[in-house]
């Protein structure tokens, strides 16, 4: 069983380029990783003796909303620049330790490597993050919308600057 700091040091030694820093947040420390290298880091975390992260508890998308905000005439907000993030909560059922990883990717072209090949359960989690935030997971086997209709073309609903359309297939949406 290892602490987060120990895990970070192991990763930093193995991937000096791709693992950035450890954020000491009040609830739990978070390890920042390069979005284009997350699959390599994940494989290492899963297969290395002494780490053995065999379970991806949850993968979630987040809109950091840290870009430049402009308010339109109708009072709605548009965000330019900034980042979208993906959080990975991992657990080792074998060794009983946990770790949280985070990747941040530019909002205008959000691309993250898929970890579906590492943990199969990431498949639907990544589809949900794609559905709600528009984060593209590279090398995902089947990156379609999972909850919204397949022909939904009004954007990604959980983005902070999302605007709901008036109609969907002739049905009025606002109350």
């Amino acid at each position, binding site marked *: 069983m290892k602490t987060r700091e120990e895990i970070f040091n192991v990763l930093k030694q193995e991937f000096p380029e791709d693992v950035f820093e450890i954020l000491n947040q009040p609830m739990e420390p978070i390890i920042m990783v390069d979005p284009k290298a997350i699959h390599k880091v994940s494989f290492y975390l899963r297969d290395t003796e002494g780490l053995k992260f065999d379970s991806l508890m949850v993968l979630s998308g987040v809109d950091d909303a840290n870009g430049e905000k402009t308010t339109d005439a109708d009072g709605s907000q548009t965000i330019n620049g900034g980042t979208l993030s993906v959080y990975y909560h991992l657990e080792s059922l074998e060794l009983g330790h946990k770790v949280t990883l985070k990747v941040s990717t530019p909002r205008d072209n959000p691309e993250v490597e898929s970890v579906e090949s590492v943990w199969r359960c990431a498949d639907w989690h990544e589809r949900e993050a794609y559905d709600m935030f528009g984060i593209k997971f590279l090398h995902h086997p089947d990156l379609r919308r999972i909850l919204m209709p397949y022909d939904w073309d009004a954007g990604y*609903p959980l983005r902070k600057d999302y605007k709901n359309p008036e109609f969907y297939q002739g049905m009025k949406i*606002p109350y």
Partner: protein
Amino acid sequence: MKSLLDQEFSDSNIVITKTEDLLNWARLSSVWQLGFGLACCAIEMMATSASHYDFDRFGVIPRATPRQADAIIISGTVTLKMATRIKRLYEQMPDPKYIISMGSCSNSGGPYWEHGYHVLKGIDRVIPVDVYVPGCPPRPEALLEGLLKLQEKIRNESLVKKTA
């Protein structure tokens, strides 16, 4: 109005009635519903079907195909994605067909009325509703009353005047 079999008749073998009443009585006594549930309201609907509340005593049996169904109970949150499917199911049902909208969500969007980007704010935007049952979710007694209201509506239907 008394139901057909409650009416007095003098001869033990003959019942005299109007065609309209007979048809309406037959229709309202066997409202076969489409076996269809959406959300938490569906749990209450299933409870209504089960032995304690016993939907069957009013002639309500779930059918597994819209082609054999007389009524559809919209029991739960209707998402936009599901609304397109409900419309298709409704169109596959033979006339005469009835719709009970069960619970706040299918009546008006319920708790999702403001921020539900994915929720249809009332099933009556897509298909015509006969009876609205309020509640979140409605208790089985409320759904039973909704069914009685629907039966009352069917009982007063006319062959010459289209009502539903």
